[in-house]
């Protein structure tokens, strides 16, 4: 056992109603990057959270340097030198970079009450920022940093805490390709310095870009483990899915060229206000026809999300016109958007899409709750459940229980519930913001099929995505968004992947 830095045997973690880990054996060697992959809900995040003391294990053993240890909380983990870099940056945005980095080391030398000298803090911060290759002023407030920089600051903090095991929980999902590349460089540098890393991801190509070994979790079980050099991506994906991949992308109906007539949604010269947060959109013009999927492809920070929010009145439009079926409309709030049949399915489902503590049925009927109510006021639970059941069946939500609380659903099923909300509200224009983000591979296939079939049924879909392959496979036409401007609109049949990637100004971030 002593050749391993960290090992688990038969690790089990039960949550009320769910067993997230069903007896996982795992080894981490010295100076190793060990990738942990699996679909959403496979138990990857739970596993690293158990190691980092966020959750305590229900059963099973954890060995550190060959000695059995018990990790009951984050402090225990940190004492051993196990640190988790969270998926969402867990830094205090109101403090400076330097303050955030030293935060975890406070109390180590001379207790929490030891006087802090600004110059010392800055020195420590500079040292670790250099290791992670960040050339920012440590006196910068964390709130103004980009998400990639925040990730690296988190890594720097882990190093400052003298971590020997750094667990990275899907660190690349919010990053652009360039930022991800930079993170990989840092990871390799840390490995050279003798650190071990557990790298959680659901992007298989990243495993082969950076990891030494790979372990696949599926449904709470370890199903595969291998040296990266002795396997290949298709084998890993096969184990992740546990079944043959169906056609990953659905076939497109021949909607090509059929865009005669009045567009369902037409946007002319849309410009958003300066005072809002996020990217300012400038002079955006586009059209979506009935039965069409229009892709708006842009990287993080291109203004995709801002565009979606502007179209439902959550971002202020200062100039430009919006037409629905040829009639000029003004959308000043989601209430008006809903009336017109425009629905935005947000990227951040948990925060903007769903009420976690309520049931699937209640979430689905919420937008037009008066429709299932007597006199528009008195709720009829039986009617709500039967309406919800219809959509649950149509979208194959698992579990198919109308009264199941949404917060316990997996990412893919949560996404389905948000889409069900939109469909139940009889949407005509469906704006989907990164609909397959953070969704497991199986659900991805289903959701993509669904998007295509909705378009074929006559819905107009505006697909906001950073996934080049997804856009090419699903969309009839693609508008390329860079820094808040549309730099070109193309028929999908007329554009090559390479050209699209070049337009975006970087490598495509496919899956």
């Amino acid at each position, binding site marked *: 056992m002593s050749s391993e830095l960290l090992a688990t045997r038969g690790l089990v973690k039960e949550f009320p109603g769910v067993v997230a880990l069903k007896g996982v054996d795992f080894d981490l060697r010295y100076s190793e990057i060990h990738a942990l992959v699996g679909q959403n809900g496979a138990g990857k995040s739970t596993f690293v959270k158990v190691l980092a003391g966020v959750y305590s294990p229900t059963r099973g053993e954890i060995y550190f340097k060959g000695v059995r240890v018990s990790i009951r909380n984050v402090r225990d983990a940190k004492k051993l030198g196990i640190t988790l870099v969270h998926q969402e940056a867990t830094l205090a945005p109101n403090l400076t970079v330097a303050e955030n980095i030293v935060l975890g080391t406070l109390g180590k030398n001379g207790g929490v009450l030891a006087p802090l000298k600004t110059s010392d803090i800055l020195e420590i911060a500079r040292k670790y920022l250099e290791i992670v290759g960040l050339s920012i002023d440590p006196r910068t407030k964390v709130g103004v940093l980009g998400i990639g920089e925040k990730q690296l600051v988190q890594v720097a903090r882990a190093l400052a805490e003298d971590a020997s095991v750094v667990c990275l929980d899907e660190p690349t999902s919010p990053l652009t390709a360039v930022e991800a590349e930079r993170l990989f460089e840092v990871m390799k540098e840390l490995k050279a310095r003798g650190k071990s890393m557990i790298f959680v991801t659901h992007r298989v190509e990243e495993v082969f870009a950076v990891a030494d070994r790979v372990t696949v979790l599926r449904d709470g079980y370890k199903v595969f483990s291998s040296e990266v050099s002795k396997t290949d991506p298709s084998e890993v994906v096969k184990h992740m899915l546990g079944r043959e991949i169906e056609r990953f992308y659905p076939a497109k109906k021949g909607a090509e060229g059929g865009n005669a007539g009045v567009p369902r949604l037409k946007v002319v010269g849309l410009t958003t206000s300066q005072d809002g947060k996020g990217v300012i959109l400038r002079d955006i013009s586009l059209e979506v026809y009935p039965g069409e999927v229009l892709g708006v492809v842009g990287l993080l920070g291109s203004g995709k999300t801002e565009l979606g929010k502007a179209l*439902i009145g*959550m971002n202020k439009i200062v100039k430009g016109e919006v037409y629905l079926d040829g009639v000029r409309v003004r959308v000043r*709030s*989601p*209430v008006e*958007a*809903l*009336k017109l049949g425009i*629905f*935005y399915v*947000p990227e951040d489902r948990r*925060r*903007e*899409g*769903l*009420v*976690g*503590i*309520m049931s699937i049925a*209640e979430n689905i*009927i*919420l*937008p037009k*709750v*008066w429709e299932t*109510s007597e006199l*528009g*006021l*008195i*709720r009829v639970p039986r009617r709500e459940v039967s309406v919800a059941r219809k959509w649950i069946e149509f979208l194959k939500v698992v579990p198919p229980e109308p009264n199941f609380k949404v917060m316990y659903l997996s990412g893919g099923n949560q996404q389905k519930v948000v889409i069900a*909300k939109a469909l139940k*509200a009889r949407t005509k224009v469906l704006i989907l913001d990164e609909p397959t983000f953070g969704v497991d591979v199986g659900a991805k296939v289903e959701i993509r099929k669904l998007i295509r079939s909705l378009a074929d049924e006559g819905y107009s879909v505006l697909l906001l995505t950073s996934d080049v392959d997804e856009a090419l496979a699903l969309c009839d036409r693609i508008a390329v968004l860079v820094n808040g401007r549309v730099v070109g609109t193309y028929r999908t049949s007329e554009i090559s992947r390479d050209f699209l990637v070049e337009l975006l100004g970087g490598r495509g971030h496919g899956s």
Partner: protein
Amino acid sequence: MARKLSLSLSKLGRPLRELLRYELGGPLVALMALITASSILSPRFLEPYNQRILLLQTAPLALLGLGESMVILMGSIDLSPGSTMALAGTISAMTFTRFGHPLSVSILVGVLVGLAIGLVNGLLVTKAKIPSFVATLASLVAGRGMVLVLTEGQPIVGLSQYRVITEEVAGLPTMVWLFIAFGVLNYFLLKRTSVGLVTYAIGGNEEAVRYSGVRVDAVKLFNFILAGGYYAVAGLMMNARLEVAYPWTGWGYELDAIASCVLGGITLSGGVGSPLGPVVGAYMLTLLTNILILLGVNPYFQWVVKGFILVAAAAALTRGVRYVK
């Protein structure tokens, strides 16, 4: 001995756990425990005379709690109950005594005053975008100020006609029937109507409800207005019970209203709790004062005990929550 106790507890365990699964389960268990303990401590506790007084004292507080719960379930807070009940009671009393209007008109005026303050609170929160804590703190202060200006600090006497509210109908004072009726109404509104669903949803995740195209601000406004109406009814009940409108009526009652909600199992972060919780909570809070008086404890001591009980209730509610602010 200890083993015996734990054995009998585990026997009790199953139905208890079954009960605790309901929203109102925790508060009801606490209520039963308090009633049992009180009846053991003082034989006079269960006497009809004492229970009648207890229910009469509970009534106004229950209405304050019901109003407060409409706001707390949305994740907001209302500090105006005490002042609103005082202002509604005062203006109603003045309409009756000084301007000589009939009782029915005076009662209507009182209710309208409550609704108006609720409207102001709601507009401050939804239109002026002032956090509810600050907006209703302003109403708390300004409302009390208006009462003192109007009454010049003097009680308004001659309200014996308000007694209709305390007269017995079918074995119980009208006031008690009133708070039972309002409890049922509140339950229906929150659990059986679309407005209720949206109220819970706002408390659960306001952002998501906005993105869904629901009229969040309209529902918020409605709840604040209705809450004001509940407080006004409480103020009229005070007029009836005391037959005098004191300018300091309801001083500090906003805290009792919030405490009723917490004791009734409504979480302050919103979205969780039974609509009947505040009624149970108000009864428990009143019971505590009552039993301490029956036992002849120094009356000032009740605040200390209430503080401890409140902490216990809040601790029970936050079980499973990882951290709070």
